[in-house]
């Protein structure tokens, strides 16, 4: 549906550079990244409001790189809703009708549909300045989708809403997408929002794609340390990768050794989910002693059903989630010496280092 090819855009010191990215027809793609990553620039380039310095954008195989914004058939929603203050709600929603005379009937029908889907029928004759933030954003969504755009662009649409409205509206955005099937590009810096609504997520950092993939792909196998940190992975450590004579790959941390599947050699970074680490007072039996790491409990945080334990060990500070019952059975407290057992299967070695990221991204 949308294909970016070697796209380059320079704005002051910032440089957006997208080698290759394809958004499939009917897909909900979220562009996730910290502020200043170039998410909005990318979106504005799709909308035609910024012209790229180099590279091409294709919609359905058609090169639109130099097409004026009003001919691109995209619906756009900004963070601040940006409704036209001199028009009322229904005039706002119907703004695009004038420019699509041939489709006027279809647009009217679609408007009715959207008004019901977003439950804004009671607002239709209201003035804009009387609406709440959530209502404004609903109207903005209806306005953008009323023209039946081929592509729906959302730039931090929930950024200024309060927590409850935000959660409500993001569910609705997903629902609307499921019903209408419009190819959607949604920009956000909120990883929860991204993983709730998206079919696929593209993580952008400093103008470059860090990883593109589904929620599971990204959460389980972050492509780099940056991605891991950005999506909230806590246990990120250094290790030394080596191979034995039969070609099996191992990670060595101090005396411990973990069997992993990775190709590299030398110093690597890896991450492991807190759930995959178990904690023991006595050296546990029935596990390979090589997979044990000794440490000292640094602090405890009781979260009800589970206890978040931070253990200082040769890896650094490891975060472990420990069930309440195990916690009581083990009788853990601060400064207790413990053994950590790392499930080797859950270890994920980052395929790219962040320095090597530039140049080849997906």
């Amino acid at each position, binding site marked *: 549906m949308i294909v970016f090819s070697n796209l380059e855009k320079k704005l002051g010191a910032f440089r957006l550079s997208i080698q290759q990215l394809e958004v499939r027809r009917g897909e909900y793609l979220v562009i996730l990244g910290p502020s200043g990553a170039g998410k909005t620039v990318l979106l504005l380039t799709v909308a035609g409001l910024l012209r790229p310095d180099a590279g091409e954008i294709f919609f359905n195989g058609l090169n639109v790189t130099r097409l004026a914004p*009003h001919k691109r058939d995209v619906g756009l929603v900004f963070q601040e809703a940006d409704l036209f*203050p001199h028009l009322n709600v229904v005039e706002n929603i119907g703004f695009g009708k004038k420019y699509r005379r041939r489709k006027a009937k279809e647009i009217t029908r679609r408007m009715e549909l959207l008004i019901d889907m977003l439950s804004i029928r009671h607002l239709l004759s209201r003035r804009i300045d009387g609406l709440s933030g959530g209502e404004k954003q609903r109207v903005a969504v209806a306005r953008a989708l009323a023209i039946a755009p081929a592509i729906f662009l959302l730039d931090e649409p929930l950024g200024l809403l309060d927590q409850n409205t935000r959660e409500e509206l993001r569910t609705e955005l997903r629902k609307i997408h499921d019903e209408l099937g419009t190819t959607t590009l949604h920009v956000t810096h909120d990883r929860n929002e991204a993983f709730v609504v998206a079919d696929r997520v593209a993580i952008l950092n400093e103008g470059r794609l860090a990883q593109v993939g589904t929620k599971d792909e990204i959460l389980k196998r972050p492509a780099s340390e940056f991605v891991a940190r950005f999506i909230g992975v806590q246990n990120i450590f250094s290790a030394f990768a080596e191979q034995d004579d039969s070609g099996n790959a191992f990670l060595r941390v101090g005396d411990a050794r973990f069997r992993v599947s990775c190709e590299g050699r030398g110093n690597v970074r890896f991450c492991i989910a807190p759930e995959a680490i178990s904690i023991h007072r006595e050296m546990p039996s029935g596990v390979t002693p090589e997979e044990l790491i000794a440490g000292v409990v640094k602090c405890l945080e009781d979260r009800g059903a589970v206890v978040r334990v931070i253990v200082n060990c040769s890896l650094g500070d490891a975060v472990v989630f420990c069930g309440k019952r195990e916690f009581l059975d083990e009788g853990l407290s601060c400064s207790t010496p413990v053994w950590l057992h790392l499930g080797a299967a859950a270890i994920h070695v980052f395929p790219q280092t962040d320095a090597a990221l530039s140049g080849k991204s997906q």
Partner: protein
Amino acid sequence: MRFRRSDFFAFGGLIVLLHSLLLVGELRGLRFRLDHFSNVALFFTNLYFVYSGYVVSTIVRKVRFLFYPFGYGALLFIFFLRNPDWRPLFFPLAIVYCSIFRLPAAVGLFSIFVLSHIFAQPHPWAAFLVVGSVFSVAYIVHRRAYGLLHVAFMVFGLAAFGLLLFPIVCFVLLDSPQTILETFAQSEVALAMKTSLISATLCTVVVLLFGVPLAYAIARTNFRGKSFLETVIDLPILIPQSAVGVAFLWVVGSKGILGSVVNVPGTLLGVVLAQMFVSAPFLIKSAIASFESVPPHLESVARSLGAPAFGTFWRVSLPLAARGIFIGCILTWSRAISEVGSVAILAYHPMTASVLVFTRSTQAGIEQARPVAIVLVLTCLWVFVGLHFVRSVAFKKFVTRSDQQ
């Protein structure tokens, strides 16, 4: 508020008591006598005093209510009993006093007004202005609505500005409508007014036609030298008017370098040209500011919805900037109609009203110029008020950005 029957009796009793006390005083042959008119007027004033006191007593606190009869008594004593000459003044003052008693600030200003007229002769207005300003500041600060600095700046600024406007107010009010109508009837004056109105309007329309697109372009672009361009637009305000007239004459006068192509002296075109030069910056600057306050995102959204660049300008930017542009129009129109220097040099005829006032004041004297000036001021005032009314009705102020976020 509901009246009970006992209230009526209480009213009646009070009035009769009050009035008979005064009458008794008169009958006892004290220092003053009441004529029939004063008697009746006094009765009704007392009636109003008691009625208004009843209303006030339901609103204000008890302690303050005790001051109500006290103030009335003071007025009565000063204006009615002590100075029989001032008696006609007593009735309106008493009625105003009773009406405003529940507003403490108004009562304060009222007392300052009265006292300054009694004690600060022969400059009662000046005294009122000064003491009243100080009182207002003190009062507002006491109520803690705003800080001392803002209130003091506001009040003293307004007081000074009031002094500036004072001559115009006197000027307009202190002439009989008869004189003004007669002045209007003079063909010379009527013609000059007509020329003024037509040329100023024409000038505004022309500036509107080229100024608004220019302003939009400036507001939506960013290039090296943009601030220089904006300074250039301000330039006409800074050049002395007489110099403007001479410069134009040199170029498009009968012997000017373009004189054989366009010859403007003595034509309406000349008048409009001179007026445009001095007044265009007002509209353009105001339009630039208005367009800049329209969020660019609104235009982006309009473009994405299918509106071409001009459609976006016409349906989004222009309506949102309309209010500011209209204010610019009012400024430009006012500046155009008041222009004398350059118009008189470039195109003395057809004579505009401003030029006529100037000519008469230098040749025939102030007395000849005054009625024309009054007519001009009144016309401008009416147009000004009318346009501002149109603005408030037709051009709403839009909140383009939500400030609370």
